[in-house]
């Protein structure tokens, strides 16, 4: 009898133990699943926020492009054609020599307007850029700059060159154009150095000048023109998950570096 009661007690204790183990397992599953659920929701929210940011960046870039077109048309093409019209309006048949001069002047102005329109079209044509590739497109830009100005431009290539994805090349080219515009407008530089670094794990494009430099902290003010330009460069870099850094000191020049992780497999 005592033996039986002992056995019954042991069995009951064992059952209670297994019951507690079962409750523990169920609670663990419940808590872990809840955490996983929360994690999945947070991940979804991050994805939504990121996509919203990408969309905002794309719209901002689109607006900037429209502003650029508007500015080009107003400043260059519009001016040239207005001047040509003025010249034509003042033509008289009384003075043949002056008439010939004015005809030549009008022809030059119209020719400049056509050339500016061609350049604008070429700049906006993404197929042109993706067909040639990034390095050749940049070299063409440099050739135009060399012909039009007195910059001393050095181009260095490290590693074996490879092609990036079309969108990546296009966006990096636009960032390069923006950086070049900033050098021309603000830096008062005489030398520009461009470095291509082709690495199996990442691609680097570095644009440096020996200009006056600037205080990098003003870039944080989004209302300044410089701030907006750099913000657009950062937005473009974000679209392709590239990293962009700008180092500058007054009187020490500026270095703009774009680093893009690549997967060559």
């Amino acid at each position, binding site marked *: *009898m005592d033996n*039986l*009661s002992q*056995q*019954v007690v042991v*069995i*009951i204790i*064992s*059952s*209670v133990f*297994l*019951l507690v*183990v*079962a*409750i523990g*397992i*169920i609670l663990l*599953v*419940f808590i*872990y*699943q*809840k955490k*996983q*659920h929360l*994690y*999945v*929701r947070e991940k979804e929210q991050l994805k939504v926020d990121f996509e919203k940011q990408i969309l905002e960046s794309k719209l901002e870039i689109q607006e900037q492009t429209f502003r650029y077109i508007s500015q080009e048309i107003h400043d260059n093409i519009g001016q040239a054609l207005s001047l040509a019209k003025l010249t034509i309006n003042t033509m008289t048949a009384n003075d043949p020599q002056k008439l010939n001069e004015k005809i030549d002047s009008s022809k030059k102005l119209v020719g400049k307007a056509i050339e500016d329109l061609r350049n604008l079209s070429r700049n906006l044509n993404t197929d042109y850029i993706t067909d040639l590739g990034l390095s050749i497109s940049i070299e063409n830009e440099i050739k135009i700059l060399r012909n039009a100005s007195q910059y001393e431009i050095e181009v260095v290539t490290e590693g074996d060159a490879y092609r990036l994805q079309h969108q990546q090349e296009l966006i990096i080219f636009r960032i390069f154009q923006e950086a070049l515009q900033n050098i021309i407008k603000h830096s008062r530089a005489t030398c520009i150095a461009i470095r291509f670094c082709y690495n199996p794990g990442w691609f680097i494009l570095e644009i440096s000048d020996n200009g006056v430099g600037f205080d990098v902290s003003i870039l944080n003010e989004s209302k300044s023109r410089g701030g907006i330009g750099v913000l657009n460069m950062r937005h473009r870099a974000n679209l392709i998950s590239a990293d962009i850094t700008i180092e500058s000191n007054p009187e020490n020049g500026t270095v703009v570096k774009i680093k893009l992780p690549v997967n060559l497999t």
Partner: protein
Amino acid sequence: MFRNFVAILLEPLSYILFSIALLLRTTIEKRAKVKVLFIYYLIAAVSFSYAGWLVFKNQNNNWIYNLLYLPAVVAICYYFHETLYSRRNKTIVKFFIALNVIYFVVRIMLFGKLVVIDSIAYSLLSISVSFLSFVYFYQLLRNVNEYKVWANFDFWLISAYLLYFLGSFFIFLLYSNLTYNILATYTLEQRILLSVLWGVHNVLLFLSSVITLVSSLWITYRNR
């Protein structure tokens, strides 16, 4: 009185609660797995009510337990088969069904009708259901979706099964052995001790039936 209630009446009451929970479930979920389980619990409720009545008449009711072993295996394992996703998991379910069926057939051929409850059969069923419960939880954790786990009836039912079958494993395993040991003397005190042990089993069964019924009610009325 209380001891009689726990040792005898709590069991059929638990199966009635299971039947009600699954009947409620069939109003929402039209799948066969719920209907099969409902039919099993309905039959079990009637059978164990009769088994309780046999106890009051001092007659052997162990044959009812031995008879209902195979339907329990088929109904519960079928539910798991329909709840688990991958082919590997379904194969595991089929393996356990085959194992239990083979044991049942071999036992009948070798031993014929038993006078005591078939401990090995119910222990095997406990191991099978406990293992399949773990397989289900593993599947649950591998496939996170937007639906909350506490709004899932399968989670509550299988949790209830784990509590009952794992908690009762040692009771199933040793009950027939204990019964054989006291058959020679079979005093009142010995029968009371065994009924206490079976009462613990019934409490676990009742607990799992309450969890199933409450979850079924809550999920049903929450969805409405």
